[in-house]
């Protein structure tokens, strides 16, 4: 298959991205975000859930949960490049709401065929969902989570925005060594959500325990489906990191323009200027790869895994680099709680190690490019 010259990023994708930037700019400017997630903090405690469900409801009203849902399940079936554009803006806003997890869940459900239609319809209708797939090592695969006779038992780790989502898509081992994907509710019987005390203030995360929890088995081989959906999960997460990194860059550039030392704006000094240029260069690398990967999801299945791995490996490095430089170039003020850069620093450090880190992903790219394993 082929990739269109403009990534297939058409007018409606541009309108969506613009609308998202306006929406977040109005509803969640960074001072409001700081007030929302960074008040009454205890570094040794477990954070209470800090977000504004009303903003989420507005996003649902705008139809953003239905964007990636197929038409036959009541969705808009927008191309992934358009969805990536939206997620980039959500990352730029460091959005504390389950948009990314819901879109990722949608991506996984889309690999499941007709058995997922009713779950997708729920999402199109505005239900927030997240994937429940990782073991204590942060990988999909052998852990304590088991399914038997439509009941789930055991626990899963690192469940993103668990406290904000009402539906879980659960990867569980079955009795015959197979794996299944199960659709269940956060308030189903036997579900216990143990909130993690995480550094990131814009997300919540939990260990989720199941005890004879009823759940609907969806069609197909769970692990294989998970693997098939990884490129979408990685690409969307990377888009979030690219958007957040761009905020970090622009905010730090503004500071370097305004702050004077030695009677010069900070940006006069090449030590600062060149660091910021290097951040920009890193962001652009990741951004081009994100849209290339998203476009491959839409148009070039044979390279989707390779390109999504590249996007994620690049974005993970960019997220870490942009975060460090945003604090360093802000100097003392950047090290304070009141300065907004800390919010993005923590979100990026969280994102970059989710669903595999850069080195892990480069190792897999090596298998594709050097050993020529089928992607």
């Amino acid at each position, binding site marked *: 298959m*082929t*990739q*269109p*010259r*403009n*990534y297939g*990023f058409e007018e409606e*994708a*541009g309108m969506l*991205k613009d609308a998202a930037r306006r929406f977040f700019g109005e509803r969640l400017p960074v001072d409001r975000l700081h007030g929302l997630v960074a008040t009454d903090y205890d570094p040794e405690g477990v954070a209470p859930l800090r977000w504004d469900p009303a903003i989420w409801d507005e996003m649902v009203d705008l139809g953003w949960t239905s964007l990636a849902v197929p038409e036959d399940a009541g969705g808009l079936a927008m191309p992934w490049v358009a969805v990536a*554009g939206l997620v980039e803006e959500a990352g730029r806003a460091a959005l504390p709401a389950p948009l990314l997890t819901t879109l990722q869940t949608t991506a996984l459900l889309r690999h499941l065929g007709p058995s997922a239609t009713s779950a997708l319809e729920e999402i199109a209708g505005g239900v927030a969902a997240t994937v429940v797939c990782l073991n204590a090592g942060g990988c999909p695969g052998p852990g304590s989570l088991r399914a038997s006779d439509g009941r789930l038992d055991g626990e899963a780790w690192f469940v993103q925005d668990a406290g904000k989502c009402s539906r879980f898509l659960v990867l569980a081992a079955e009795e015959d060594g197979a794996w299944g994907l199960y659709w269940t509710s956060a308030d189903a019987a036997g579900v216990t959500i143990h909130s993690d005390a995480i550094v990131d203030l814009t997300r919540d995360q939990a260990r989720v325990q199941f005890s004879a929890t009823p759940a609907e088995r969806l069609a197909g081989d769970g692990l294989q489906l998970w693997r098939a959906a990884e490129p979408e999960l990685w690409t969307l997460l990377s888009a979030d990191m690219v958007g957040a990194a*761009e905020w970090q860059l622009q905010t730090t*550039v503004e500071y*370097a*323009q305004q702050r004077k030392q030695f009677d*010069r*704006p900070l*940006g*006069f*000094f*090449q030590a*600062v*200027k*060149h660091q*910021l*240029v*290097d951040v*920009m*260069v890193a962001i*652009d*690398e*990741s*951004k*081009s*790869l994100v*849209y*290339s990967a998203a476009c491959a999801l839409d148009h*070039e299945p044979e390279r989707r895994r390779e*390109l999504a791995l*590249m996007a994620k*490996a*690049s974005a993970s490095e960019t997220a870490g680099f942009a975060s460090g430089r945003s604090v360093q170039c802000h100097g003392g003020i950047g090290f304070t709680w009141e300065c907004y850069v800390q919010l993005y620093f923590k979100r990026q450090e969280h994102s970059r190690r989710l669903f595999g880190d850069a*080195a892990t992903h*480069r*190792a897999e*790219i*090596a298998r594709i*490019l*050097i050993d020529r394993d089928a992607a």
Partner: protein
Amino acid sequence: MTHPERRDSAEQAEYRAHCRDWLAAHHPGEPPVRLPTSALEIMTDQQMDYLRAWQGAAYAAGLVGCDYPEAFGGGGRSDCQRIANEEMLAARTPYFPNIIGLGMAAPTVLHHGSEELKARLLPRLFSGEDIWCQGFSEPGAGSDLASVQTFAERRGDKWVINGHKVWTSLAHFAEWMILLLRTDKGHKYEGLSYFVVPIAAALGRGVTVRPLIKMTGETGFNEVLFEDLEVDDSYRLDELGKGWQVAMTTLLFERGAGDLVTPRSGGLKSSSAHTTSARAVMDLAQRTARGKGLASEDPLLRDRMVRQAIREEALKEHQRRARVPALIDHPMRLPLQNKLLASELAQDTAALALDVAGPAAGLYLGDEHAPAGGQWPLAYMNSYGITIAAGTSEVQRNILGERVLGLAKSK
């Protein structure tokens, strides 16, 4: 594989078909001599003759300068050079030898030259009959280009030029030079003017071209001395004192950030060509023993090779994204990164290849056992030419910080 033809206009589709047909029938074939990595390093007449013939044939077939006006020897098309370039790359052609003419002189003459100069100079430039070189840098004017001291003194409607230019690639083959010089010693920027100068005709009579030897031991660029060279005022581009602005046009195109796509062939892969790419390093690693296995099995080298592949992929994708306005924040943000990224990528890729090659990395061109014929140490050393020439990496970062990010000027 991606297929670039998707979304061609009707005119473009027809033109692409023409290019493809012509290339299928007229590929120049395997070169009779080893070719250097880039046209800037052409050293022998034999290399130049072969490459000049290729450029002439491609021009005659309409593949060179097709977006330029017909009145000046162009093809009168629009947004088609890109297509010719894509097809030539896909057909694995050799590169064009008149790289400075096509990439820098032609657009500068088009934007700033008189109608007469355009009509006289551009056709022979496109055909490769006239090779061009660039007279910008001087011993005392490197990063600080505006401090050039080469001086033209007015005598009637003539100018008498004295001065010293360095790093002039291809000067020993060149008929013409684009020349930045000073016509007023009182003003740094406003004292500069810009000429085109027929240097081949003046060799030994006011112009001396001397080869400079690179750290690699190869020649390839030159110093050019002007002693009382007389040049007609009609060879001036744009107004007197506007030399700096004209030079900015040249540099914009040099950085790949101009409004015309440079005619560019390439892609020839043969025993006589060498590519500085992640794939080439991976191939080397798969042929190189390391410990009890192969270098391609070493996890650290694998990680580094993939890093290079990622950077390459991104640089390629920048070309595409630069054309999608919704996905860029500043129109010059990607184009102005081109030179920095390409040069540092090449440097790091070559350095990685040396690490892959291990102790054999030190074997050079004349060694029968040298991996890849010693091309990797050559490529690594030559990469410093690229990170230094045409605005060092440090200057590139200043430009990006100032023009794109809007940070205060560092100088």
